[in-house]
Each structure stands twice: as structure tokens, then as C-alpha cells.
């Protein structure tokens, strides 16, 4: 991020005057700071619990939400892993319920093995229900 900032500074000079640049960059910088700060805040707010009969996912800073999905309403479970996440051995898990409902739960940025474990657990629970 900082590198890009310096690069743009060096190659800059589109504006004749200096002040618009300062204005733009300070706004940008503030926004970046805000993002980092929020990411941190959100990170500490986020959590999940795999319980005997349901799974809970808590997240959000400004709007705090806690979504609970019982296993006997689960349609299918998916594991995702992007290239960046693969480099760190991370992954995500999504739990889908029926219909077009917004009641789909997805947790990202957990250890891949953990995601697989959760998936196994839920699959076994869902299987035993039927």
C-alpha cells in the first residue's frame, strides 16, 4: 500500500498545483486507516461456534449479527479456498439452507483443516437426521 502511494507520488504531476494532491492522498490515507481499523475491530468481533445441533456465526462491528442455522435445516455444505488463502493454509466454509433465503451461513479465513473438520461434522449430523 505504502509502495503504491510513493510510486504515485513520484510519477505524479498531473495537477499543476500541489494542494489537490495533498487533499486526495490524505483522504485516501484516512480511508485506508479506517479500513485497517475496521478490519481489526471486525476481526475481534467475528466468531463461530459449532454446537451439537446448530452452528452459530457472529460478526460485524457497526451492525452486529449472530446467525444460527440448525443442522436439520442444512441442504449442503461447501468448502472454499482462494489462491491467497491456499498460500496460508486457510479456507472457508459455507452452509446452505433451502430456498432463496438469506439464511446461508459462511465463515471465511479459518484453517483449512478446521473447515474440513466442521464439514465432516455437519455432514455426519445431517446424514444421521435422515
Amino acid at each position, binding site marked *: 500500500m505504502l509502495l503504491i502511494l510513493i510510486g504515485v507520488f513520484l510519477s505524479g504531476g498531473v495537477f499543476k498545483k500541489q494542494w489537490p494532491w495533498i487533499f486526495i492522498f490524505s483522504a485516501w490515507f484516512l480511508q485506508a486507516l479506517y479500513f485497517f481499523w475496521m478490519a481489526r475491530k471486525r476481526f475481534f468481533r467475528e466468531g463461530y461456534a459449532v454446537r451439537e*445441533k*446448530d452452528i452459530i456465526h457472529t460478526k460485524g462491528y*457497526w*451492525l*452486529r*449479527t*449472530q*446467525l*444460527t*442455522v*440448525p443442522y*436439520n*435445516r442444512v441442504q449442503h455444505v461447501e468448502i472454499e479456498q482462494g489462491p491467497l488463502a491456499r498460500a496460508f493454509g486457510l479456507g472457508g466454509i459455507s452452509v446452505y*439452507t*433451502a*430456498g*432463496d*433465503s*438469506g*439464511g*446461508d*451461513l459462511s465463515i471465511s479465513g479459518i484453517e483449512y483443516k478446521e473447515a474440513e473438520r466442521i464439514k465432516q461434522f455437519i455432514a455426519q449430523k445431517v446424514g444421521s*437426521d435422515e
Partner: protein
Amino acid sequence: MSESSTPFYFQPSRQSPVAILLILARLIRSLIGQFWPVLLLLLLRRRSANSSQFWVWVGIGITILSVIRSLVTYFRTRFYIHEDEFILEKGGFTRRRLSVPLDKIQTITFQQTFLHRLFNVVSVEMDTTGAKGSEISLTALDRDKATALREYLLRWKKENVNATPTDQEAAVDIVPEVELLKLDLGALLRIGLSQNHLRSAGILFGLLASFAREIQPILGKSAYKYLEEEWGLTFNFFWTFALWIIVFFLLVSVIATLALTIVRFYNLRFVQTGDGFRLEAGLFTRREQAAYLPKIQFLRWSANPLQRIWGMYNLRFYQAAGHQLRGKQTLQVPGSYPHQIAAVQAAYFPAHDQMRWKWYHPHRLYFRQRLFILGFLPLLGLILKTSTDFNWFWLIITLLWLPATAWWQWNLLLRKQYGLSEEGLWVKSGFFTQSQILLLWSNVQGLEVQQTLVEKRYEIADLTFYTASGEVEIESLPLSMVNSLRDYVLAKIEVGAEEVEKVEELRS
């Protein structure tokens, strides 16, 4: 088979011969749809005798080909039920055979266009769970046959899904259908009149206003100036003119919605069947929609002031559906009277009126938050507007804005009620348009507790219930209550399944 003559659906059978005509009509329509520019060109072109003859031959050739094509399609499409699978054979040159297990068939929809009704046939569509392209559709089938087929499929589902292989056949006699509602023209007119005309007039007006801005460059001045200068309208006259315009738009939108309502809901029949409800309506295209009780997720009925005077409600069923059919599956019955609503409630939520309901109001924060967003924020803008360019009209609006929104929102708060019982949720809300929702806990798919920062300070939270067909939200209740309600509903869902499991174990 105990019957002496096997029904037609057990042996390979074709559609009604009318299907040939309908397939042809569809083919020609799609051809015209694709090649209309060419046709237009041909019509507009100066024709020489020679080439027009050529085109006539081309036309004849195309017609013959389409006739052959529809004949082939007709004769190669066959369907039958074999070993609990619905089999559809189709395809002109490459033969395709589609087989769908009967228990995967979700809904059966009949549809009639104008042509269908001429020959008393229906098109049949069956929605299946699972992958795309596994939908079965028949272009035309005699009405009696279609009904017989549907009855067979429904009976089959009832017998087999409940997994009771014993001799229940006597018990599953088809329950006679009860006609709940039939709309005559008078009721239709009332429905059309009681739609939200202010909104449609607003939309129309907005469209025209943007159009006026579009033509501004053409006229070379603003539309308002144009009216003033070219038509010699003074300021006062402009306002009377504007009033007339509003009246005109209201009139137009009233007539337009009336016409649309009649086309859509003409000759509406709302029927209670053994396992759900059925709705038939439409002037040109007659639709038949079915709602099966186990698939109904929740009910919602509402009425605006005019509808309340007439005692009418707009009833909606929210049904679970596959992804493709999402929109089709909310079933709307306009002009329902309390008597029909009661019947539907009794079917979806038996004994809901004997249950003890505990009623709760949202916290006052609900009012304050909404007043802030809808009252104070626009007020700032209005003040800015009046102070920069003064105008009596805007001043009056600015002065009235806050009291009006406060009054409105306060009434909303007073009307909003959440009823809780052992089996489900009952929400009453709305001031102008009052609506009610009935939801069974067993239809809940997931629950979400939400809290904004402000709500956190007051220990207040919102709770959203996700169903397989949309969501129901209850807002601004004490956090402790929301939490215990969530736990209760979760327990209800989870224990319910366990009990079923136990029964299943005992049975096997």
C-alpha cells in the same frame, strides 16, 4: 392395477392433437421474432415481380418446413409413467428420454393462453427439485386428461411420501374441493380502484418529468420556461395547470390499473383442495397456481384504508420453490374477505385462534430511529433548500414535515405488535396499509440476531427469521427476550426433528 382399464398415463401417450397447431404457432412467432427486420425490409422495399415471386416461394418453403417440424415434434413426444418414474420422450432427430422419479416432482402448473382456451386444452409444467433442464413441460393436453394426471400424481405423492405402505387406499379418497372465493366484476372493479394509485401516478409523473428534461435540449429551453413563454402561462396559472396535470395522471393510472387488474384477475377462482389451495385467474392467459400446504412458508395479508372500508384483504402465500421458479411461487389472492382468510389460516396454522398469544410492542427506540432518518435528515435538506431559494410552497412543507412524520411514525409504533405463541409468530403492522403475517416456527430455516451500536446501548435487538421463501423480521425488542426467543425456536426446530427420528426408529 385394480382398475379394469388402465388409465392413459401408464402407456405411452401423445399430447392432444391441438398441440400441433400450438407448436406451429410458437414456431412462427419465434421465427417472426427473429427475422422481423428482414420481413420489414421486404415489405418496405420496392418490389420487382421477379424477386417477389422468389420470396413467395421462400415463404412457402419455410411454412412447409415449420409444419413438418411441428408434426415431427408432436409425433415424437410421448409421455408415460413407468415404475414410479415420469418419462418424457422427445426430440426430432436426436431422441431424448427424460425420466424423473415421481417423488421429485414438486409442483404441477396448468396454463392456458387464448388459443388453449379455444380448444379446451392446457399446457402442463412440472417443477422438479434438482438440476436445471429437468423440468417437464407439455404443450397441450386435454383438460380432463391433465386433471386426471395431476390427481394421480398427487395421490401417488400422498401414498408414498408418508411411507405408509398398508392398505390406506380407501382413506386417500380425493377430498372434495371447496370453492372459497369467486370474484365477480364488481369485486374486480373494487380491487382495481383500491390499488395504490398515488404511487403509480407518481411513477408516471416521474417518467414524464424525466422525459421533459430529455426534450429540453430539443426545445432549447427548460420545459417550465417553455410553458411560460410559448403558452403564456403566468405563475398562478402554472399551479392550476399543475393541479390539472396531477388529476389527469391520477385518472390515467386509475384506468390503467383497472385494466391491468381485470386482465390479471378476471374470473378468479380460489379453491381449497384436499392438500392445499388452488388459484385460477386471467383474461387472456389463464393461469392455474397451486399451493401445497407443506410448502407454504408463511402467510401475509394486508389492506389499505379503502380496502378496509370494503372489508377486503390482499392475501399472499409464500411458498418454497426451486431456484428457477422463485418469482412464480408467491401466490396472491386479491379481494379476500375475512372468511377466506380464516379458512387459509385454519389450514396453515390449525388452532391458532385457540392458542394463547402474548403480544409485545417494539421499544420506543424504533420510533426514534425512524424519526431521525425519515424526519430530521430530510428536514435538514428542506431547511437548506428554503433558506437558499425562498418559496412559500417549500416553507409550508418544511414546517409540516416534522409533525407529519412524527405523527405517522408514532402511529406505526403503536400499531406494530408481535404475537408469540408455542407454535408460531403473528406480526401486525402498518398504519395506512395494515398487514399481518403468520409464521409457524417449524418453517424457520435459520435465525439472526442483529444489533446496531445504538441498539446495543439500549440493550435492544432485532431478530430475523429466515424461511425457504423470504424472511420475517421483528424489530426493537429487549436483547434478553430476543435471546430466549431464539433459543426457544431453535429448540422447537431441533427437538421436532429428534422426535420424528424416534418415531421412525420405533417403526423400523
